[in-house]
């Protein structure tokens, strides 16, 4: 069973229905017991970094998530949920994250401007994956050039060692990260059609 953590940020309907569609048992929950009993955890999220992390803290689940991750239980962060896996985020000031993956979450606009690019922010839409670590179990059913759906204005930096896949948007954006049993997708696998469903299936099969 996969526990989808419900901490009041974002719409979990698509995520739970995509797992159900794949026949993967899941539960949307904020119960520490249920999360501890689950085989795997998904940390979703939309919104702003600091606000979301505060909400996660308010549920009292931060120590639970950290402990389960430390015990090697597979954890997948999606979109803002991926960003929260890092040490810190710079959306409306500096905020601490879960610190499960070394790195920082920084504004995309600053780097695009510095590079002299006038690309739109947020980065919304379908972009192709460039898979750097093909052996990563999350990418088991994915291939280079697979299109995934992104919606975000901030992106992960200083996490070179954990990068599994990137997408190009003026700069190389982190698409997928992994460190031990902790995984993250900046894009929305539950909104990325067949390609996304394959990534969710791969996550569900991680031993």
């Amino acid at each position, binding site marked *: 069973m996969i526990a989808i953590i419900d901490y009041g940020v974002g719409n979990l309907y698509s995520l739970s229905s995509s797992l159900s*569609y794949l026949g993967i048992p899941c539960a949307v929950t904020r119960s520490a017991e249920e999360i501890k009993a689950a085989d795997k955890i998904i940390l979703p999220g939309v919104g702003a970094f600091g606000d979301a992390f505060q909400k996660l803290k308010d549920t009292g689940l931060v120590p639970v998530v950290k402990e389960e991750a430390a015990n090697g239980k597979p954890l997948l962060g999606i979109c803002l949920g991926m960003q929260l896996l890092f040490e810190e985020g710079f959306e409306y000031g500096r905020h601490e994250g879960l610190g499960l993956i070394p790195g920082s979450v920084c504004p995309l606009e600053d780097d695009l401007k510095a590079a002299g690019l006038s690309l739109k922010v947020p980065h919304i*839409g*379908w972009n192709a994956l460039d898979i750097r670590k093909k052996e990563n179990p999350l990418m088991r059913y994915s291939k280079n050039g697979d299109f995934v759906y992104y919606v975000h204005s901030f992106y992960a930096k200083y996490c070179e060692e954990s990068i599994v896949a990137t997408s190009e948007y003026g700069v190389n954006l982190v698409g997928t990260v992994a460190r031990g049993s902790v995984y993250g997708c900046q894009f929305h696998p539950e*909104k990325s*059609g067949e390609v996304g469903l394959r990534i969710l299936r791969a996550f569900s099969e991680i031993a």
Partner: protein
Amino acid sequence: MVTKRIIPCLDIRDGRVVKGTNFKGVKDVEDPVALARFYNESGADELVFYDITATYEDRPLFTDVLERVAAEIFIPLTVGGSIRGVGDFDRVLKAGADKVSVNSGAVADRSIIAEAAKKYGDQCVVLSMDVKRVGGKFHIFVKGGREDTGIDALEWAKFGEDNGAGELVVNSIDTDGVKNGFDLEMLSAIAERVHIPIIASGGAGGQEDFLELFKEPGVDAGLAASIFHFKEVQIKDLKAYLIQNGIPMRVV
């Protein structure tokens, strides 16, 4: 490189698709789920559902449609029509929508945009505008294009962006239904004013119209209804044609 997007729009009344009676290859063209499934398999990048249900009592039929589509189609779903307040956002988001498009509701109550953006995030709020030329200017129209609000469309687009709209749908009343191409002049004027994604609507007649549209750098997506419903343009063929002409497209 982020791709340009092709978005078919389905009008739903009392739980059924309106239009599309000539549709071949789908058994029940009035079944929103069957049609959504077909578009998903054809490579549509998103789907837009407009709720044109006449009475409040029949709204649950629309919510039911959304839930059924969201249970098996995993691409972004936008809902528009009859969005008057944050309560309507809540209702359709809980039923599986990813984005909500607000049009005349935002003209009637401007605070809706900021209120919804704060509650659900910018990515969730799409400002849809019906625009028509009046005396050399672009004006916002409401009530199905019948009423001129006098609001300047460029100002309105900027207001939307500043208040947290994540995307704009720009529907040109002047080119809508004419099938002679999108309103490039209007679109580029608005694109110059804002920095959020723009979805163009109104005027698509053939593949070439989408190529001309996507040559305009400020436009991110093309939305159409009847040409897709009547299979005058097939999304698969359209995408192949655009890729051949150097436009980045997602292929499935």
